[in-house]
């Protein structure tokens, strides 16, 4: 299915290649580089490309292109999903998925790729299984290895690989048994000029960090599971139990994982935590414009809005901005023309305001569209949808685990049109 993989840096430098079938010359990447050149912005490169003899499927992650080459029909999502899994694995192993780190760990990367794919078909993609075969590099281990000649590669078949619980390895042991669940909700919204909601929805995920000894069987139940409209689960969750009882019953993987992601039904009205009063105008004559933005709390459910951040991508003709912020700091990136205003905590008594003038290149026509405002924020200890975890039970092991649930609401793709 997948013949070869090329890793290409942001600048177009091919720094790693791996072939699972016959070797394909890296000249095949030229087609891709051409397309990339044409698209300008790396985000705009089409994920599926066609060349005379091959098909190129690529993803863009962490300023890197993962380009896979295939010769025959294959579901493109299959490849895309796999490439993302590869990127996830790198992130998991090396902490980040960047060119430098991958170059540093070429051998581990190679070993990983060798295990993840056999003849172009995914073999082991569960991070728990991989970690049993190839241990993640740490400084301590590399020191030990050089001294003892030990290796990072396990010699036995990981138990997970054989079982129906491939996500969990056997013989896990912890002194502190703990299970933490983070309920993270994101508000996706588009507000129009006058502040009315054009579109809003809530997407949530439950991220878990489970460090439990043995083979625990967990059951997580919600106070109000009916709220959830559409859900997708980690493979460990027993779907039948969810259908019949609306509880999450699962044998968790070891460590961090995403237990489920959900969508809150769009019938429910979404509380929008902030409002934005904005006035951006470009003068018809003379090369300047004015900007005035005030942000205030709206429906915050009694919580404070934190880490408030405002991003405004300015039109390309904008030369510079001269603004004053009553709270926080702002920066203007000259190359990308993005105004970034880091507000911090939102104080309802004293609303943050950003105002000032914008200067445009002389001679350039007045931009006819005002830039949209993207807002980023965080509300601690609140799930905006009102979802509540009611209890977590553990079966199969006899110790008492330490349990914790945290709620966070964030702004997802929160956009204000002006």
């Amino acid at each position: 299915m997948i013949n070869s993989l090329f890793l290409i840096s942001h600048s177009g430098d091919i720094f790693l290649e791996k072939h699972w079938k016959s070797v394909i010359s890296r000249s095949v990447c030229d087609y891709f580089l051409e397309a990339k050149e044409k698209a300008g912005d790396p985000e705009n490169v089409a994920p599926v490309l066609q060349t005379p003899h091959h098909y190129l499927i690529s993803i863009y992650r962490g300023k890197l292109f993962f380009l896979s080459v295939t010769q025959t029909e294959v579901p493109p999502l299959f490849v895309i999903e796999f490439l993302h899994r590869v990127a996830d694995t790198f992130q998991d192993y090396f902490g980040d998925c960047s060119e430098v780190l991958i170059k540093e760990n070429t051998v581990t990367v190679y070993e990983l790729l060798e295990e993840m794919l056999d003849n172009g078909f995914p073999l082991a993609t569960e991070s728990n299984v991989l970690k049993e075969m190839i241990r993640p590099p740490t400084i301590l281990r590399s020191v030990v290895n050089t001294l003892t000649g030990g290796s990072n590669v396990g010699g036995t078949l990981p138990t997970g690989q054989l079982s129906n619980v491939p996500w969990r390895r056997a013989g896990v042991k912890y002194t502190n048994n703990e299970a933490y669940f983070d309920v993270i909700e994101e508000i996706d919204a588009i507000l129009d000029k006058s502040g009315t909601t054009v579109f809003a929805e809530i997407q949530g995920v439950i991220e878990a960090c489970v460090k439990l000894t043995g083979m625990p069987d967990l059951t997580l139940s919600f106070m109000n599971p009916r709220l959830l409209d559409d859900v997708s689960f980690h493979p460990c969750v027993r779907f039948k139990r969810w259908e019949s009882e609306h509880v999450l019953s699962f044998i968790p993987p070891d460590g961090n994982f995403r237990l489920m992601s959900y969508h809150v039904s769009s019938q429910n009205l979404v509380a929008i935590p902030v409002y934005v009063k904005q006035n951006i105008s470009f003068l018809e004559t003379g090369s300047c414009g004015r900007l005035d933005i005030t942000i205030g709390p709206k429906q915050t459910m009694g919580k404070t809005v934190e880490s408030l951040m405002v991003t405004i991508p300015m039109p390309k003709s904008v030369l510079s901005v001269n603004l004053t912020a009553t709270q926080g700091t702002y920066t203007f990136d000259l190359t990308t023309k993005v105004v970034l205003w880091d507000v911090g905590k939102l104080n309802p008594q004293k609303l943050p305001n950003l105002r000032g003038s914008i200067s445009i290149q002389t001679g350039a026509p007045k931009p006819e569209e005002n830039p949209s405002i993207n807002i980023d924020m965080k509300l601690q200890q609140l799930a905006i949808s009102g979802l509540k975890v009611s209890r977590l039970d553990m079966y199969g092991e006899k110790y008492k685990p330490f349990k914790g649930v945290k709620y966070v609401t964030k702004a997802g793709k929160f956009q204000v049109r002006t």
Partner: protein
Amino acid sequence: MLESNKESLKLEAMKRIVQLISKGKNASDLFPAVVKNVASKNIELKKLVYVYLVRYAEEQQDLALLSISTFQRALKDPNQFIRASALRVLSSIRVPIIVPIMMLAIKEAASDLSPYVRKTSAHAIQKLYSLDADQKEQLIEVIEKLLKDKSTLVAGSVVMAFEEVCPDRIDLIHRNYRKLCNLLVDVEEWGQVVIINMLTRYARTQFTSPWKEDGIFDENEKAFYDSDSEEKQGQREAKPYIMDPDHRLLLRNTKPLLQSRNTAVVMAVAQLYWHLAPKHEVSIVTKSLVRLLRSHREVQYVVLQNIATMSIQRKGMFEPYMKSFYVRSTDATHIKTLKLEILTNLANEANISTILREFQTYVKSQDKAFAAATIQAIGRCATNISEVTDTCLNGLVLLLSNRDETVVAESVVVIKKLLQTQPTQHSDIIKHMAKLFDNITVPMARASILWLMGEYCERVPKIAPDVLRKMAKTFTAEEDIVKLQTVNLAAKLYLTNSKQTKLLTQYILNLGKYDQNYDIRDRTRFIRQLIVPSEKSGALNKYARRILLASKPAPVLESAFKDRDRFQLGTLSHSLNIKTTGYQELSDWPAVAPDPSVRNVEVIEPVQEWAPSLGKAKKPKSDDKFYSDDEEKDEEGSGSGSEDSSSSSSSGSSEESGSESEEESSRDLEKTSSDSEKSSSGSEASSSESESQQKEKKRAKKVTPRKSKQTAADSGSDENGNGPLGKTSSSSAESSSSEESDSSEDSDSDSPAPQKKTVGKTKPKVEVKSKKEVSLLDLDDFSPAPPSAPKSSVFSSSLLSDLEGLSLSNVSSAMQVTTSSFGPVKTYELLHHMTGKGLSAKYHFPRQPCLYQPSMVAVQVILTNSSDHSLEEIHIGDRSPASLNVHCFNTVERLEPGASVSVSMGIDFSDSTQAANFQLCTKEDQFSVSIQPAVGELVMPSTMKEPDFCSEQRKLMGMNETSATIAMATANTSKQNISKQVLSVANVGVVSSDQNNLQRFAGRTVSSGALVLVTLELRESSTALLTINTEKTVMASMLLRDLKQALYQA
């Protein structure tokens, strides 16, 4: 460095070589040095050598052969991991000479015991096929064999091999179809994608169309612009259609996968529903597809493409989610365009105003390519929905004054198209455009305006010649496309208004005649001949007017995704809109379904290699009665998936597929129980009161010696106190023994008669349940539970094997190094349904270590609802004595009439036979119940060697020793029978002994862990000396009494 003796140096060297390879540099010179290390002990080094070998073997074939023998040796390695990786590398070496070796290795690996190795062999099939296609026939044989494999691990890989090697051999699938459908949920996610895609193709050839009429699909396409979904609905009701149950099976089993986190799986299921499901069911995929839009950019791209295709045919599916397709300014351009496409497809009379308002925002976008696309979309909406055409047109005209010329140009082009569809009085728009003409520089737009002028020159008689005059001035500087249209305009004007334009036309034609572009020269010459009257071309001249000014059909503005539906959704071909290599056409539905019986498999055969000892005759019977199978049937029947097995701690789905493994793991159970089953049916008539099949079995075995035994029983009937019963049924004596001990403090409200009746009534259920318990016990026994060992491991292993089902089955067969002990299961009444207002409860001791606390005794309670309404919130209430330590079962939320549920609880009896009293509560009522343990249940087996036993026994002499001489039934004198009897009474472990007349059993009390040692010394003439050594003297005497009774009777 490779030549070095030190492993670490070699490793370092190999790492550098791999780095070279990864950069694409040629390292093939080092081949001889590297290949030497292939047999290295260091696994990491070995793996790196493998990487190297696979990369360069093709170039250095001769040298690569040196390594082959190492792999051949490794193929025989006892470690499955090594076998698998050897096969992996061997098959990855693309050297044609070793094809026969590979073939042999694949064949061997295909019947390997380890599913992992079999999976690897499935991968190797594809590799070999790509290396040498001549092996196809042989490979198909291997595929056929592997398709029969029941391991979920193998399924995905072998289907992949099937797709690659012989996708047209659909006949291989028939017999495995149902199995694949059922396994699907448990297959790893990548395999799911492949299997679903294959099954989609399969289903299209095997089932008839669920879309009622064959033509409906095509009609939809034609009727799509009319957008009346009512019409479709009307046709759907046409004639009854009965779906093939297998077809239904596929749809039902794939549905849960829509919830997968893997986007490829979701997409695969979505396309399966799209291509296979009845029209009204397709919409369930909508939600999941919309969910995928939250994923990565690349995923969005592919999903949006597919939604675009779907939305053309089925607007209704995505209309409720219209807002999810609203464009954000931060989206990538191709995502924006796709969203726009979908919005346009979704537009109808009802939502057009919302969509147009949204479009207005997009038109102002800074992304000009996107703005232009929006204008086109507006154009499409305008043609599709006649109500808004005028509004759109006005809006577009306003855009003509836009500052950005790409927007203007696009508007012009779209207006041109719109005007063409409505060629009525729009002369003012044309006039307006003529005014703008000077400012527009985009050639396409200029050409469009010129064409419009020419086409409708009669409506703007004054302006058109003026425009032509301007064009004549700038003709030489124009783009080719504009020049052509100028020539056109000139010709048309010449025909309609020759007075004013004759000279202008002449001038332009002259310019065109000497143009650099041959197209233009050509056109000019043609036009000249056509319109200017001359001697040569008389004939055509007459028709010139009709040729040039013929009314032209309006262009159809349609979606770019219109023709994509010829490809299967979700495929690469669909994404690129071309037929890619290896694309398998989705066939049309057959008019008549092929014979569905080809998919029939007689019985669910257990895999032969694992269970060779099973006789054929027994199989169907045992299959039928298996608990999990029962459930499977239930589920298939009702589809509601009622989970009455919540206590079994494994989800229904895994159980479904795990039925074989359970069967497998309880193989020795079957050996013991299968004959008991037979006997049970035989002896049913004689005594239906038997409570546990265990006893039936014994009785069945002792049919012949019975008479002689009865005399003995007669003589002893006095001490027993239950003589008459004991004679007729040995088992009731057993139960009465417990009743007897109960009677001291038990509330005697239950009369024996109704008790027996209920037992008789619910018997099939109990039997099924008890068997399950036995099987669990068998698994547990493999580590014969020394009390100090962590019980959790025991539990989890049984849990594991429950869950892991198929793929672990060979491991579980290894677990069966266990003493063939049996679980005597006596079920006691806890609550009678008369007193419990319909709720009845029975309990038994599963004799497993308790999960909750080691000092507790596990009790399995079976709650049955024999009333006619459902009972809610069954839980445990107050208990007495208050200090009683009970681990309650989870509240049973709801118990339907007739249903029963088995829950487990733990009770700390503190080594006394005092009853545990507690209240069993439902939502409305509370019932006091009590559990009275038999003394034998308060111990658990302990393993020890004979010497240990003796030394322990010596420590427990004197006061701690209780002994009695007992009379034994003659049939009981054999060693096995004795141990059976003892084990049925007390949960102790057998201590192996070489002395013939001595039998020893050891156990520990559950709460305090005190040793309980039982010795039985056989004497002459059916007597024996029974000695019990334990600190708990009270227990000892009670145990002694129980044992005496048991041995005496049987």
